[in-house]
Structure formats: C-alpha cells, structure tokens
C-alpha cells in the first residue's frame, strides 16, 4: 500500500447543530490526484476548509504526513506544506503578477526576513518558469486585478506552485473558464501533479474524467462512494443522488 499523505478520520463539524460534514473518513495517497464531487451543500468546500485551517472541526482528526493539523493556525498549516486555492479566485489585485508570485515564495515569511528580502536570480528564475507554466509568462508586470477570470484562476494556482506544497487543495479550478481554458488547465494539473498530491473539487464531470485518478462522492456531509470514475458513475447510490428519485 502506498504512503498516505493525508488521513482524515471521523471528521465532523456542526454549525448550531447542522452537521455540514459528518463523520467523514478521507485518505489521499502520495502523488495522487483526487477529485471530490457531490451536489451543492454536500460539504466539499467545508472539508477543504477544515484541512487548511479556515474552519475548525468539531471533532475528528486530520493528519498530514502524520502531523495533526486541526490544532494549527492557517499560516502554520500552509508552512507545513498544504496549499489552498479558493472557489472565487483570490489573488492580490493591487499587486502585479510578478509580485503575487513573489509573495508566495516560501522563504523569509517573517517580518524581518521580508523586510530585507532581495529577489535573487534563482527566485526570479522560479517566478519566470511558474509564470510560463500558468500561461502568464507575458503578463508579469500586469496588475492582477486586470487579468481575466480564468487567468486569475491560473495565477492562484501559480501562487500555490511557488509555495511548492506537498498537498494542493483546489476548489473549482475551472469555474468560469472557456472550454479551451479548461483543457489548458487539465494539462496544467496533470503536469503539476508529478511529485505532489492534489485534491480537486469540481462539478464538471468531463473535466473530472480528464484528470482524476480516483473520485470521492460526498452527499449531505457524508461519504457516499469512492473509486475510479467508472466505478463511481455506475454506483446506484450516486446515480440516485445525482438524478433524484
């Protein structure tokens, strides 16, 4: 059995009695690209929120490389090697693409370090190559606020690449993208999944089919099914949830 990078066990969070995520067990292997699907309100985003520290779980454990994450603060989890992309592209709109990427470079993240930070040619090189990879090589000097919706999505993925996380959590990375941009993104995700694990939330089944190794289906906060795309698609319960009664 392959090495597990993420082990989520019996994870529950309740908001005033409403259980958004309810006793979920969720394991991700090293180098795996996992897709999480499910109808609205299934708890997909909340699950990612808890892994990255945005929401504190009510009970359960989240182990990342055997380290418990649920007691750590967001920035500590990020430093431990978890990167998160949000549903709405969230980039620093008042900074340039270059500065957005540079800020995400995972060194000198304390006050004094950042005060005396100098951009070395090594960092510059890394920025260049990431920018190229996310199709933004020609837009380094542009303010991020001026990018298109799809480009902002890419930039946010690029910022995560700068962080070089072992585990990437992507929430609807192709929302609002054209078919061509979707394909480019699929190529991008397949390329960057080498040497790291990725969890993707996505509604677009064609896109999921393009990238997923394994698919997890959530429904009403609970784990409904897990397996390859074909297994999941032929699962009775999944069909029922998606097609209704």
């Amino acid at each position, binding site marked *: 059995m392959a090495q597990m990078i993420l082990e989520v066990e019996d994870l529950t969070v309740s908001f005033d009695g409403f259980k958004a995520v309810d006793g979920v067990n969720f394991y991700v292997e090293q180098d795996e690209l996992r897709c999480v699907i499910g109808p609205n309100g299934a708890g997909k985003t909340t699950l990612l929120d808890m892994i990255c520290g945005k929401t504190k779980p009510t009970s359960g454990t989240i182990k990342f490389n055997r380290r418990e994450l649920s007691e750590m603060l967001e920035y500590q989890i990020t430093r431990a090697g978890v990167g998160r992309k949000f549903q709405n592209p969230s*980039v620093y709109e008042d900074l340039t693409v270059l500065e957005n990427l540079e*800020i995400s470079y995972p060194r000198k993240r304390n006050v004094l370090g*950042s005060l005396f930070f100098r951009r070395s040619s090594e960092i510059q090189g890394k920025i260049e190559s990431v920018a190229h990879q996310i199709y933004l090589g020609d837009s380094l000097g542009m303010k991020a606020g001026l990018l298109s919706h799809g480009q902002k999505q890419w930039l946010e993925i690029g910022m995560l690449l700068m962080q070089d996380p072992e585990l990437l959590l992507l929430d609807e990375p192709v929302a609002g993208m054209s078919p061509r941009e979707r394909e480019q993104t699929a190529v991008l995700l397949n390329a960057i999944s080498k040497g790291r694990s990725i969890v993707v939330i996505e509604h677009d089944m064609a896109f999921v089919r393009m990238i997923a190794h394994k698919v997890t289906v959530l429904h009403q906060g609970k784990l409904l099914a897990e397996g390859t795309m074909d297994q999941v698609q032929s699962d009775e319960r999944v069909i029922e949830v998606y097609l209704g009664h």
Partner: protein
Amino acid sequence: MENVLPAAAAPAAKKSPLALMERWGWLILAVLLLVVLPLWLDVFRLTLAAKYLSLGFCAVGLVLIWGYGGILSLGQGVFFGLGSYMMAMFLKLEAASNPDSSSGTALSAFFGGEGMPDFMVWNSVEVLPWWWEPFHHVGFTIPAILLIPALSAFVFSYAVFRKRVGGVYFSIITLALSAILAIMIIGQQGYTGGVNGINDFRTFMGLDLNNDKAKHVMYFITVVTLLGVVGIGTFILRSRLGKILVAIRDREDRVRFSGYDPAMFKAFIYAVAALFSAIGGALFTIQVGLASPSLVGIVPSVEMVIYAAVGGRLSLIGAVYGSLIVGSAKTLFSENFVEYWMYFIGGLFVFVVMFLPEGLAGLLARLREGKNRRENV
C-alpha cells in the same frame, strides 16, 4: 534587482506616475524644508513650521498603517503624547534642579519643593513619584521614548490583531485609548500637570532652548529626522514587507494561506507608526516647550488622520506636505478668522473623503496620467 531579467525589468522600468511624483516630491520637499523655509521665515514662524512637522511624524506613520496596512488608528495621539510627555518629564526635572531656569522653579524652591516640578508643589505632591525618577537621565529618557511607545503598541496591537479584531472596531478601540489617556492625564493633575500640561522649561542638557540659534538647530534636527523617517518608510514599503502589507490590506485571508501571520505584520507596522509618532512628540515638546493633554485626546488623534488624507493616504511625502498645509491653514485661520477654522477643517474631512480619496498626491498623479495619455495619442 531590476537587472536580473529583462522580461521582468521592462514593465517595472516604466515608473507609475505616483512613484515618479514621489521622487520629485522628495527633492522639492528637501529644498523647501532645508533652504526655502529657513531663509524665508522668521524664528517664530519657523518654530510653527517645526510644530507642524512634528505632527507630520504621526501623519507619516498613518500612511504606513492606514494607507498601506488598511488599519485606521485613531490613537496616534497616545504615542505622540507618550513621546511628548516623556521628553517633558526630562526637561521639567532638569528645570526643577536649576532654580535660575524658570520662575516656577524658583517659586517652588521658595516653598520648600526643591528639585520638584513646580506643579507638583502646587498640588501638594511632596515626593517625586518613582516613575518620574529615571527621567533625570537623558540616557534613560531617549531610549524610553524610542522603545516604550513602540513596544506597547506592538504588544497591544498584536494581541488585538491575533483575535482578528480589525476595521472599524480597531478604530473605535484606539479612539477609546486616546480618550483614556487624556482623561487620566487631566485627572492626575499632581503627577502629570493636569489640563495645563507640563511646561515652563528652557534648557535641554544645559543648552538654552529659547534663543534663535537653538531654535534653528532644533528645526534642522526635526527636518532631517523627518526626512529620515520618510526614508525608512519608503524602504519598508519597497521591500517585500510593503507588498505583504498591501496584500493583507486587500485580502487578509489569502495571506494566511500564503504562509504568513498577518497579525505579526500588522503589529510590526503599527509599532513603527507608534515609534514615529513618539519621536514627533518628543521633538514637539522640545520646540514648543509644552506637553499637553490637548495633543493626546480624540480630537488631535483624528485630526492627524486628515494630515495624511490631504497629502494622500498612499504617499509618505504627501503626509509631510499635508501636515504643513493643514498646519499653515490652521495658523492662518486662527490669526484672521478663528471662528471659521472648524468649518474649514470639518469641510476638509468631508471634501477629501468624497472627492479626493487619494489626496493631493492622487490628484497630481491623475493629472499626470491624463497628460501622458494625451501625449501618447
């Protein structure tokens, strides 16, 4: 650092109008403050200018925390006041130990309060409070001015920011802090001089502060220090830390997921602003000869914000211009038609917020941008 790779350097080389203006603004300001004003103004006016410039330290700090950090502190008067009062305590003790130095000291010595500040004698405080003692020494006073306000600002704000209190709540809490300090100073007359403040001192380490030469020297010290402070601010904003501040201002949540602790950065910049304010306060006291609760409370604390806002909340240099402009306007009004000052400053708050949200610097930048665009067509 711009010469590493041409692809990245090209867009950076075309300076934004704001950056270009900052460069010219620097030059003009330096000439204005170091040459024009000293030649043009008499000593009385020059001291007035020095007074506005002392308040300009607070405005520069506000550009850092408010313009770039997005934190509107209405408590900068607290740190200005701390610097001002610590300096005043030192000067007052020096005056008290030298009966020739002021009429108050001579009188209080006559009433048996030798070595005691005169206002303590009038308030029947017979023993110098322990926390006044260290201010006998300049070697304590100056480090204290530089460290105490900054450290307390850091500790206070880190605690608050860690709890993710921000926005208007932070403004209201800092407003309450300035109210608290002003109330305490006024209430503890025997130890603080109360509503009259601490005044009536003439020497600083034996040097007479009242002659013209000393005033000129102090003026230049103020200008150089202020320009130095603006330089430090510029260095901070250009560093990676400056970028992180902007990122925190616009998307604090995202910054956490880039692996930073925003509370630490905000507290740091808040402490820097407090340090600047305290330096301003100390220089103010030396030159104006006064530490007063009227410069601590909520009215001055909010007024400092307008200095920064008039110059442009995103421009460090603008904050200095803003302080000079608003300060001069205040003098102009108070000498000619004092009853209209409140209308002016009140209207200024409304006008700047509604029509000039980026202040004069923003206005000039926009004009320049317009001109460039026309030329390029």
